[in-house]
């Protein structure tokens, strides 16, 4: 009996604190888990930043397989969590269903557009960030041939590739060798094949290779470093994976999206609809740190900063592959 009362007290104390905090945010990560050094970890960092600044704790969940998606999402919604942020385009199907069942709950999905009145869809202009690293790659290259290794062959990855080609060609690259790792989800986790593709591209003359391929990219960066060439990382800052051989990383600020969703909700200005984060909004960028500062010359910095300013001002329009499924560069 005593324990029951204690339990009730504890429960009421928890609800009280939840009401005091006003909002009860939650985040659900995609397969890969929150410490993947890439996409999900970035989302986790955004949530942590919010927690540190506001003192409001959040609920989180790492799914283990696809079957858990809808279940986990519905559970969070039933428990009254609001807003609920989902990292990853694979959440779309589950969200479409659950968002309709809970019209008063706010949802945010990253990397995908879900058309529902209570959903904020956050997508990125990856082509803009890729354009910048493309410029850097072409300027670093001696052969003026650069490479691109994509993961699974989907339009989203071609969007990375297309922006990169645009940037590289604008900075004097004569050829961009493009390869995709595969056409199934296994292509995200095949570093061996990634390494072979990188070696093949190097044999064809490429000396800077951009990997937009999840776990496969680790093999690409490794092969580039083994051969004494340069790789370019993606999503989060991967400069430290092969210090001295990763020219830069194309940053996709998933943390910004998560932080904004939580913060907007706290301030009562959570907006629904499509939220596009480009260079201007700080959603994409390139990474500079101690690991790569000796690789990037002042000229390169100047050219990249110049292009960045022009893209933000609208003077350079980087083509979005997904708008018409073609790449003009």
């Amino acid at each position: 009996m005593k324990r029951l009362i204690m339990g009730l007290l504890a429960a009421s104390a928890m609800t009280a604190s939840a009401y005091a905090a006003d909002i009860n945010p939650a985040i659900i990560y995609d397969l890969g888990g929150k410490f993947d050094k890439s996409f999900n970890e970035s989302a986790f960092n955004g949530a942590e930043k919010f927690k540190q600044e506001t003192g409001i704790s959040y609920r989180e969940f790492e799914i283990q397989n696809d079957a858990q998606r809808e279940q986990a999402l519905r559970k969070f919604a039933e428990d009254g969590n609001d807003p609920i942020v989902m990292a990853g385009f694979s959440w779309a199907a589950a969200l479409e269903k659950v968002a309709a069942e809970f019209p008063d709950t706010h949802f945010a999905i990253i990397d995908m557009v879900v058309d529902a009145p209570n959903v904020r869809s956050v997508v990125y202009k990856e082509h803009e960030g890729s354009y910048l690293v493309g410029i850097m790659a072409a300027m670093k290259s001696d052969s003026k041939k650069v490479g691109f290794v994509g993961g699974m062959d989907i339009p989203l990855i071609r969007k990375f590739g297309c922006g990169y080609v645009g940037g590289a060609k604008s900075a004097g690259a004569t050829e961009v060798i493009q390869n995709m790792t595969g056409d199934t989800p296994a292509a995200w986790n095949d570093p061996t094949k990634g390494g072979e593709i990188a070696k093949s591209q190097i044999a064809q003359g490429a000396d800077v290779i951009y990997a937009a391929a999840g776990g496969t990219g680790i093999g690409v960066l490794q092969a580039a470093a083994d051969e004494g060439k340069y790789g370019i990382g993606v999503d989060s800052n991967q400069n430290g994976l092969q210090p001295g051989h990763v020219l830069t990383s194309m940053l996709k600020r998933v943390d910004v999206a998560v932080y904004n969703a939580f913060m907007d909700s706290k301030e009562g200005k959570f907006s629904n609809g499509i939220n596009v984060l480009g260079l201007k909004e700080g959603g994409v960028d390139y990474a500079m740190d101690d690991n790569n500062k000796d690789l990037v010359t002042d000229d390169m910095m100047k050219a990249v900063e110049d292009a960045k300013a022009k893209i933000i001002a609208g003077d350079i329009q980087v083509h979005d592959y997904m708008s018409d499924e073609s790449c003009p560069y």
Partner: protein
Amino acid sequence: MDWHLYLGLNVLDSTIRISVPLLLACLAGLYSERSGVFDIGLEGKMLAGAFAGAAAASSFGSAWIGLFFAILVSVGFALVHGFASITARGNQIVSGVAINFIAAGGAVILGQAWFKQGGRTPSLVGDERFSVVTLPFADSLGGVPLLGPVYRELVSGHYILVYFAFLMVPVTWWVLFRTRFGLRLRAVGENPAAVDTAGISVTFLRYRAVMITGILCGFSGAYLSVAQNAGFVKDMTAGKGFIALAALIFAKWRPVNAMFACLLFGYLEALGISLQGKPLPVIGTVPVQFMQALPYILTVILLAGFIGKAIPPRAGGVPYVKER
């Protein structure tokens, strides 16, 4: 037509690198299946070996210790399969599938618990990873026309495990067809009752066979994570164990044929990488998807038309029960 894209040294070099894990796994499967124990758990053992190898190499700072642990863990899994299918007389396919699942899940869970990198192991640097072996005179002979570059690029400059893998082909042939153990191994896969009548333990023979399978799978896994790559990434075997199994059937359970089958698969994959996005003569540019599917399409065609009937060991998949 640019023949370099088809038979250039870098394509052939890539062929060798891609073939090695297939070859080791294929020879591994050969021992087990020749003894009458079907093993679709090659993939799982490679993956477990790859994880154990990378984890140990990174923890102890030595590629050789990594290799040792890769073999140890892989043999452990092989013994589990052996216990299930030899002693407990369970279904060998079910046991193999279970091993694949345990290895895939276990590696990620332990990796996350130990290294906190989403199931990856830290990148291996320096002595933690095997380095390539430059054979004697590789540089001085490099100037000899034709054969020089072939020796320098193709024969020299691989990891030591590569030479080991190709050495295992004649060794396996010799063991299987020239030793008493090999004769008994083949016999126990064809007619265990006859072996038993001769007073030889079927159980012990089969256990020895699955242990050899475990050792070779360990080498294969270590090659993936400690030599070819520098570290473990979840599901990094990417179906190689199953391709090795296909190669084994392709090779009709013979070691030298197995080598050629694995080299063929490796070559097709290397070709797929080399030709991707390049226009082919007559046809023009082919889609990525076609190049990816090419090895499998050719496998089906070759299996259907050119190889002839592949007959597995007669007692394969059947647990041996002594009549009482």
